[in-house]
């Protein structure tokens, strides 16, 4: 069997390639219309959300259908603190994240004892409960009316003046998010998570406290989700319950699987694809969704490991010898 070890410069170059692609997409956004800026901005926000989800689903092999709950906490946290109480955006952002993390911790304690469909169902219920509360707790959230007039992103006196500046900030934050996720993954901590995805009994037998690590991954995913929610609020200036509804779950799952779950760049690739593709089909009018669905199904059929997985087709080394756990942890989830 051949397993050629690539030189470290080769590896570094390949690691930088996706960053370059992301920056190119952003540059394209900056030179284009507000429409493109909006779509790419959403892609960056969803990219952050999915990177967190990928942490929990891709690396740790657990299913969560309820991450939208934490995005809602972030979004409403920011909207209420900044919009109604005139907090500094950064402070609101961080406080919302801490709050979301805390909630994830408390909720995760009992929930993560569940497995498989039951975990899926329980997390789904969490998302649904949060959604319903955001509709019904009128005095706080203003229900379907939503909260308008959320200020743009900024730090203290400095405020991002327009969408393009905001896009730069979002892209940088997204890259930071990916960088953090890679740091976490390639460590003792991350290895333990990936071990849990592979086999819980075996992980336990090696002294890994499975419950604790799952909880940690859940909290991390919630922090990402909360950040994405806050950023959405700043980017659009408005939030309402539907923003964080079931559509968010479906969309993020699509991104994850289309892009390639368990890979570093899959969530980002997926987010860009899922948000851009329908725009290309917009001209089809009534048939837009029909064709989009067909395209989606075709992609899922012909790129079962996701688009990021396709990248390995072009890699020089044999696929089997790739050192990263690309694509495959999805199978662990599917069990």
């Amino acid at each position, binding site marked *: 069997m051949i397993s050629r070890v690539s030189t470290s410069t080769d590896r570094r170059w390949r690691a930088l390639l996706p960053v370059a692609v992301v920056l190119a997409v952003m540059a394209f956004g900056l030179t284009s219309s507000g429409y493109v800026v909006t779509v790419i901005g959403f892609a960056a926000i969803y990219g952050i959300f999915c990177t967190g989800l990928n942490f929990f689903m891709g690396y740790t092999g657990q299913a969560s259908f309820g991450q939208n709950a934490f995005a809602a906490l972030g979004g409403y946290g920011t909207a209420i603190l900044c919009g109604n109480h005139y907090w500094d955006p950064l402070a609101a952002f961080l406080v919302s994240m801490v709050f979301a993390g805390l909630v994830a911790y408390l909720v995760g304690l009992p929930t993560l004892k569940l497995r498989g469909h039951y975990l899926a169902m329980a997390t789904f219920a969490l998302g649904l409960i949060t959604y319903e509360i955001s509709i019904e707790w*009128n005095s706080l959230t203003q229900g379907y009316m939503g909260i308008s007039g959320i200020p743009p992103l900024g730090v203290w006196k400095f405020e991002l003046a327009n969408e393009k500046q905001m896009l730069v900030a979002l892209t940088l934050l997204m890259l930071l998010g990916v960088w953090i996720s890679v740091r976490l993954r390639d460590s003792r901590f991350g290895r333990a998570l990936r071990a849990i995805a592979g086999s819980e009994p075996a992980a336990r037998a090696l002294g890994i406290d499975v419950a604790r690590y799952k909880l940690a991954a859940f909290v991390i995913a919630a922090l990402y989700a909360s950040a994405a929610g806050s950023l959405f609020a700043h980017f659009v200036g408005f939030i309402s319950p539907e923003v964080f509804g079931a559509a968010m779950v479906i969309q993020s799952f699509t991104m994850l699987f289309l892009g390639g779950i368990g890979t570093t760049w899959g969530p980002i690739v997926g987010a860009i694809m899922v948000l851009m593709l329908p725009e290309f089909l917009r001209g089809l009018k009534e048939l837009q969704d029909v064709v989009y669905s067909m395209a989606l199904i075709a992609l899922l059929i012909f790129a079962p490991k996701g688009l990021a997985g396709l990248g390995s087709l072009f890699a020089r080394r044999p696929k089997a010898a790739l050192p990263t756990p690309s694509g495959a942890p999805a199978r662990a989830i599917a069990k």
Partner: protein
Amino acid sequence: QETYKIGAALGLTGYAAASDRAWRDGQMLAIEALNAKGGLLGKKIEYIGEDNRSEPQEAVVVYRKMMSNDKVNIFASGCVSAGNFAAAGAVIRSETPMVLCSILPPRPEEQKWAFSILPPPRFEMEARYGWLKANSQVRKIGIMHDPTPYAQLMKDVAVKTAQESGFEVVAVETYKPDDVDMSVQIGRINAAGGGAIIKMGQGGSTVTVAKNIKQLGLDQMILMASLDDGVPLKAAGEVLGERFMFVAPRVQIPSSIPDGEFRKAADTFLTAWREKYGDRDPNAGARGWDSITVIATAVELAKSYNGPAVRDALEKLPPIQGAFAKFNFTAAQHVGITENPYVVGVLRDGRFQVK
């Protein structure tokens, strides 16, 4: 630009599909008619309708698309309030006026650019309370509403004006538009002594409530539904007979339209509508038609396609008789309908008639 562009963010799919599709079709009819007469100030009108899937995030995307790519001159969007609210910030920054089928965005600076074709909720309540008082013995009522902003507003009005109108609200119940059963809420209203249910909210839920009333064997209970499309109203009417009533614009029951300029305006619309859509319900279509009439009048008054100029003209419009209602916009009054446009209708002999 060769054409005058009217953009619309529409819930063509999702919960708003039923009303926004008809709204769009009415708008397109009106534009066809205007273009046949040569367009606006010499330019043909171009209509750009985009599906926002009844979701705010999608709405932001399509608004941005219409603003930066299509460079639309004015918006005439559908009834997805949250979608219109979400985009309002960006729209006012580009100084584009919006004529909406939804309620107005909450912030004053946004309201400055937005105009609503939707009647204020108090008219629906006046129509229902008025009829009930004049025609029935029922004085204890129950309210059922969904959590949409318009229904919430109407519920507040209903509770506030009940006493002065001579009614006692014995129960206020909520439901979700996609609930499969509302018997429990109906049962509570009945148990509290309510003789009529005032329902706020559109769509299939009205049919479900009618069915549930029948299934509970409540053969005295009256159901008064909101302004809605004919399909669910008809289905509910078939279940409860004349115990089912609804608030209707006169255009929905053409026989009730008084002669005069109203008749003329309505007939122009109805002829075009019937020709194309047969006996499809004209309610939302009429509103869509009127939104274009309002815009066209404003452009002509402004003698300009320019956004701010058209906005200013909208505030100075003379009263316009539309097919749905009479519109009377002023600087202080961005909700254009100032006279109650409603009658109370029932289904009789398979047709809608004034009760």
